[in-house]
């Protein structure tokens, strides 16, 4: 396939498909061929669905030719983290415990993309149960970072990050409980949005922590994330956390720029040695970019990252242990190393600790909302730094060194991660933008303004 096709954005491909100058069938065949050529070394796909994709692409082409164009996802090849149920397609969540699991129904989020005309290329590697990894003893080996195969691709939506960075899909769905969309986005050099809690349905997605889990789009540009979010957002009675909201066109303000935006700097989240020097430098440079774009930029007073991490870690362990208790009792050895070690901390948390963690979360939300009275969006580092070596990621690494991504999960606010620099070793660096809950359009607008004036999101890894 020609490489320019591999790295087309959804917006670009949609324009060509609508105009009749790009065939969804040709695009899909090109994606399948590229995966066959290079994914053996990357391992981003665990279950390709070539025939499903070919049939959907053919249907899209026929419909579009008949004047039944559904919109900018019609005929667009996408892929799903293997935590999303797909009717008739194996979905193991990366675990030997679910080795033969084949769901009977589609996750709501995938059903919405499917109904918008998207073409399913396959299922993408996830760290086990969205909490393990990178573990070599999981059902599927960790996807390799295309920038450096020795480096961690981020988790848990690892396959999504790798496939997008490598030009193997145009969009993907991930999940995020403490950073699982934004960390692979940061380490692989792509763009990912964790939407507001309640905005995108989680029905049919394997849970980790019911009050912290989010489903969101991953792509190579902010605009593509907005296009995906337009299809994904909306109330779903099948998800108890889903909130009914007025419909919003998340692409409408993407060209509005950053002039006049009030950008708060989250110094508290960048402190405590949570972020590398080059990560801090990229974050500060991004702040300067927003100043250059006409935004007002100043530090705001936020709670400490350790407070956010305390709430995130305790809540996740309790809610995750509730899901896995019986299987851990019966077949703990069948879990991969990292997930069984982490989940086995569950019994050490008392009911009163969980209650206090929930109360702490309420306090953190109140403090954050008070700080947000001064600003429209918050800029923070997008990751602890460039991708670390995979072999050095220990079982409790993100406990001993809390992740800057955890705050947004505790708050339930939108968080958009995107590339903002490059390390001396040639690895992507990232920042994230947060806002108030349900102000997803605002972080997308600010992110689009950043990408309109920078090229970090156009950097490509050395894959052929």
């Amino acid at each position, binding site marked *: 396939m020609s490489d320019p096709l591999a790295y087309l954005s959804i917006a670009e491909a949609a324009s060509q498909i609508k105009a009749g100058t790009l065939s969804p069938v040709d695009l899909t065949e090109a994606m399948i061929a590229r995966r066959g050529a290079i994914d053996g070394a990357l391992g981003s796909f665990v279950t390709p669905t070539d025939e499903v994709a070919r049939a959907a692409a053919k249907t899209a082409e026929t419909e579009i030719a008949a004047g039944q164009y559904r919109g900018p996802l019609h005929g667009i090849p996408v892929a799903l983290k293997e935590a999303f149920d797909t009717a008739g397609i194996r979905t193991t969540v990366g675990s030997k415990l679910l080795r033969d699991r084949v769901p009977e129904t589609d996750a709501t989020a995938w059903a919405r993309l499917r109904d918008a005309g998207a073409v399913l290329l396959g299922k993408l590697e996830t760290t086990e149960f969205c909490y393990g990894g990178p573990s070599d003893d999981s059902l599927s080996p960790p996807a390799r970072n295309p920038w450096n195969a020795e480096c961690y691709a981020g988790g848990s939506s690892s396959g999504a990050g790798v496939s997008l960075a490598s030009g193997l899909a145009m969009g993907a769905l991930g999940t995020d409980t403490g950073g699982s969309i934004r960390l692979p986005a940061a380490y692989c050099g792509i763009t990912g949005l964790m939407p507001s809690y309640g905005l995108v349905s989680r029905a049919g997605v394997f849970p980790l922590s019911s009050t912290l889990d989010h489903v969101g789009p991953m792509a190579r540009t902010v605009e593509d994330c907005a296009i995906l979010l337009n299809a994904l957002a909306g109330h779903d009675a099948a998800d108890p956390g889903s909130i009914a909201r007025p419909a919003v066109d998340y692409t409408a303000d993407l060209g509005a720029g950053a002039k006049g935006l009030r950008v708060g700097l989250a110094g508290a989240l960048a402190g405590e040695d949570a972020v590398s020097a080059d990560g801090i430098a990229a974050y500060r440079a991004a702040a300067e970019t927003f100043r250059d774009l006409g935004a007002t930029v100043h530090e705001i007073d936020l709670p400490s990252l350790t*407070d956010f991490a305390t709430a995130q870690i*305790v809540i996740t362990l309790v809610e995750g242990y509730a899901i896995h208790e019986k299987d851990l009792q019966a077949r703990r050895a069948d879990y991969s190393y990292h997930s069984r*070690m982490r989940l086995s901390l569950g*019994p050490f*948390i008392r009911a009163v*600790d969980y209650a*206090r963690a929930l109360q702490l979360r309420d*306090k953190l939300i109140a403090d954050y909302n008070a700080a947000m009275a001064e600003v429209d969006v918050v800029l923070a580092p997008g990751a602890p730094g460039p991708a670390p070596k995979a072999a050095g990621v220990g079982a*409790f690494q993100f406990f001993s060194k809390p992740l800057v991504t955890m705050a947004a999960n505790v708050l339930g606010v939108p968080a958009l991660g995107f590339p903002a620099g490059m390390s001396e070793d040639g690895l992507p660096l990232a920042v994230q933008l947060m806002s108030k809950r349900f102000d997803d359009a605002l972080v997308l607008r600010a992110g689009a303004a950043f990408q309109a004036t920078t090229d970090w999101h156009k950097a490509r890894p050395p894959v052929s």
Partner: protein
Amino acid sequence: MTPDEIDQTFRDAGLSVPAEERATMADGVAILLKFIARLDDAPIAAAPGKDDAS
């Protein structure tokens, strides 16, 4: 928490943790307990009505 207390917690929970994993688990427990200790000092909301004399 001592190694014996950790082992007892696992037994009470019905988890079988092999000997070769116990030292690493103890490290994880130590980190977790530091977070839990912070909850004791966390500025949390008072129970509604608790101090309401009316």
